[in-house]
């Protein structure tokens, strides 16, 4: 009887990325191979804790012998594969994807979006002022987190995190078709009338800031959100004996947001309502003590 089941040994696959030889373990993705080759491929719908959804298409690369461009985040690496990350076709495709997304969606809080738009020469305004958008007012229906679907690129990560991949609560799903598709609770009810348990595991994976802590949303609205001034410290939750790792985002000695390390063996990036939002008690100080 073996004490601990060993991981089966993984063979290394040899392939070429932009003319450079790389070796990645069997089962790795093309995105992993690109990272191994030091290539910086943009991604939006890819999540390190989630199964690839192939929704956004911003990570496409050219694979020799393949008729269509391949999404790097989900395409498995194969022996002898020849990948081009910066071919004319791949760059053009990324540019159009960014133009379509940025013309219809508010990417102002999407990390690196502006950088990529510059890098690929994307012109989101080229569709003119009449271009369709998903603009709508943010949904603020509870004190913990805000849903600002004007920023939603329909990557499905929140649905997967809420559903069978992690939380298994199924409070949200995709409603509608085509351009009118939206992430919605059942019957578009307010969160407070939905199955939501406020774990915030959807906020954790949201790539654009469409889902955000109410604390972050309010501070942004007041012009006080200042990420470069924030510190991030990983500690342990104080609410039960499971030992979840919390990363506290602190600005001016106040906790403004809580995330969890995605590679942590206890949480894998997930928390419950108490870990995610239950920090307020340490910073409730009476008015006289300021």
């Amino acid at each position, binding site marked *: 009887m073996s004490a601990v089941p060993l991981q089966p040994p993984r063979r290394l696959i040899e392939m070429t990325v932009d003319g450079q030889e790389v070796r990645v373990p069997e089962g790795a993705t093309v995105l992993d191979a690109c990272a191994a080759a030091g290539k910086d491929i943009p991604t939006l719908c890819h999540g390190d804790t989630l199964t690839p959804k192939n929704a956004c298409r911003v990570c496409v690369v050219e694979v020799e012998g393949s008729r269509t461009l391949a999404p790097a985040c989900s395409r498995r690496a194969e022996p002898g594969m020849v990948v081009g990350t910066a071919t004319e076709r791949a760059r053009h495709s990324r540019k159009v994807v960014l133009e379509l997304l940025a013309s219809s969606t508010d990417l102002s809080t999407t990390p690196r979006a502006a950088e990529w738009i510059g890098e690929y020469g994307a012109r989101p305004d080229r569709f003119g002022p009449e271009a369709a958008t998903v603009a709508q007012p943010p949904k603020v229906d509870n004190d913990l987190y805000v849903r600002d679907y004007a920023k939603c690129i329909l990557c499905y990560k929140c649905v997967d995190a809420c559903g069978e991949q992690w939380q298994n609560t199924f409070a949200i799903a995709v409603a509608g078709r085509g351009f009118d598709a939206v992430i919605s609770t059942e019957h578009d009810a307010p969160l407070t009338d939905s199955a939501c348990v406020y774990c915030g595991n959807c906020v954790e994976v949201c790539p654009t800031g469409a889902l955000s802590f109410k604390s972050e949303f309010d501070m942004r609205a007041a012009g006080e959100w200042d990420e470069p001034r924030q510190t991030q410290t990983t500690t*342990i939750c104080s609410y*039960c004996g499971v030992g979840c790792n919390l990363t506290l985002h602190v600005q001016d000695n106040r906790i403004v947001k809580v995330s969890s390390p995605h590679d942590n063996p206890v949480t894998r990036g997930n928390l419950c309502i108490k870990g995610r939002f239950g920090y307020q008690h340490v910073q409730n100080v009476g008015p006289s003590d300021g």
Partner: protein
Amino acid sequence: MKRRRAERYDRLTHPLVREDGVLRRAGWEEALDRAAEGFRRNAARHGPDAFAMLSCARSTNEMNYVAQKFARVVVGTNNVDSCNRTCHAPSVAGLSAVFGSGGGTSSYQEVEDTDVIVMWGSAARDAHPIFFQHVLKGIRKGARMFAVDPRRTGTARWADRWLGLNVGTDIPLAHAVAREIVHAGLHNTAFVERATEGFAEFAASVEPWTLQAAEQVTGVPAGAIRELAHAYARADRAQLCWTLGITEHHNATDNVRALINLALLTGHVGRYGSGLSPLRGQNNVQGGGDMGAIPNRLPGFQDILEPAVRARFEQAWQAPLQPRYGLNLTEMLEAMGEGKVTTCYIVGENPVQSEADSLNCVKRLGMLDHLVVQDIFLTKTALMADVVLPAGAAWCESEGTFTNSERRVQRVRKAIEPPGEARDDIVILCELARRLGHDWHYDGAEEVWDELRRLSPAHAGMTYRRLADLQGIQWPCPSEDSLEPPFLHGRLWETDPARRGRAAPFAILRHSPPVDLLDDDYPLRLTTGRRLDSYNTGVQSSGFASPLRRGETVELSPEDAARLGVVPGEEVRITSRRGSVVAPVFVDPGLRPGLVFMTMHFPDEVDTNSLTIEATCPIAGTAEFKAAAVRVDRLVPAKAG
């Protein structure tokens, strides 16, 4: 119906001392002098055992180490305990009696890689949500899950089978499972012969518990008991997990032993994927015990009665240690009532609201000559103190480590400065020690940890550096160069008897129904527990605006609500033999007729623990929070017609 929110607690930002009967603001020097003077006075007058210390299961390992050292070295008593008494002390007592170690035997990852998961008395979906995500991974990978619980909880909703037993009938159910396994010839004879002792007597003792007899007592259909027995015994790997549904009973250690018996019978312990997991309720209740903040163990869970162990600590600490066990929390409270314990130092605990039969607890604390409370809030317990010392919140305002339910020691880091004049727990303890003639000084938590590592073999290999690099290390970790397997007691599977070590004994147990009997005056069974968004006495969780929070309610089955003629939201009176409270009705179809559920999260609105009974487990001292007899009365007479 809208209920008012529980009151919000503000942080303590400066020390308080009692003068002319009221607490007033004081400077640190005055407060520390007063605190130390009271301890000195009482120890001089009545001896060191007049002192009792309640250490904090929410604070760091380092703080707990220093706190127990304070009791043992500065004062000279083993009277040190923590709230682990109110939850999992029976798990520690049961596991250490059988295996010699009080920790859960498995890791979270193993529950994903197992074939059968039994969640016994555990509402983990709501009480331990992230552990339950590992259970859900296991279920999605094909594991069968059985939920054993009087209530159809969130956990039960994910189960293949829900065994809704009557409160306090865990031993008959476990015995029937055992008997069925033996009669079907499904017990692991090789393991039983090699690694256990007392099988024949055990098998004879469960013989009366036929499936039919158990069905009568537990209320669980015979077919379901049989199915659980066969699934558990036939599984290649199986995990048995439990929470307070097992341990908050007057015979809790027996309950734990009844579950361990099943693992011994089937060989579901000591292998990857097979094990026993008590899910701990507080962030460092495992660590507090590991650090010796319990009356019978020194740091590293080493028995205080062992002369060799004691000698090593006496040498290291340069102080004599009492060669006897101290008082546990339950005994401390009794001793306060008898005038034997006259001074108490409470760090971060709120016994006034967390203990069963809370009115009695207030009376006993009121008899103390000198009470010092160190906390982050002015709790109901702190309001009774002579000196209140404001502390930092361990989890985000101090450096150190916590130990979780899978024995994983993880680093706690300081992210923010404590408010006002609040200070780190260890700094406060050292200030008091200095005033009592012990010139202690630690340059930070790591120095405390390194002192502990020299004294506790189970922690010896856990440097702060390694803890950070490896995202925590599970004990035991005796060497800085290697890691042990993630599960305990692999030795039981060794073929060489010398390496196998002490055989694991079966326990012969008797069924003992809840102490608080049901009768015509108190016909309903009240059981208590947690909700997803709240925590214990609510002092912490009242601080954030949870959209799920609805305040305290009394949850009734639809049948009982109809019989009583009450509707959701209606306020009713709930009365036990000890106290009486008023709460609004919430109807929960997950409750069976005769069963009533309340939480302990809103004691400032509804003091549920004035209803519960202080019938305690004689081995571990845990009270029977899970089984009180109550009556529910309408406040207004039913309208005619």
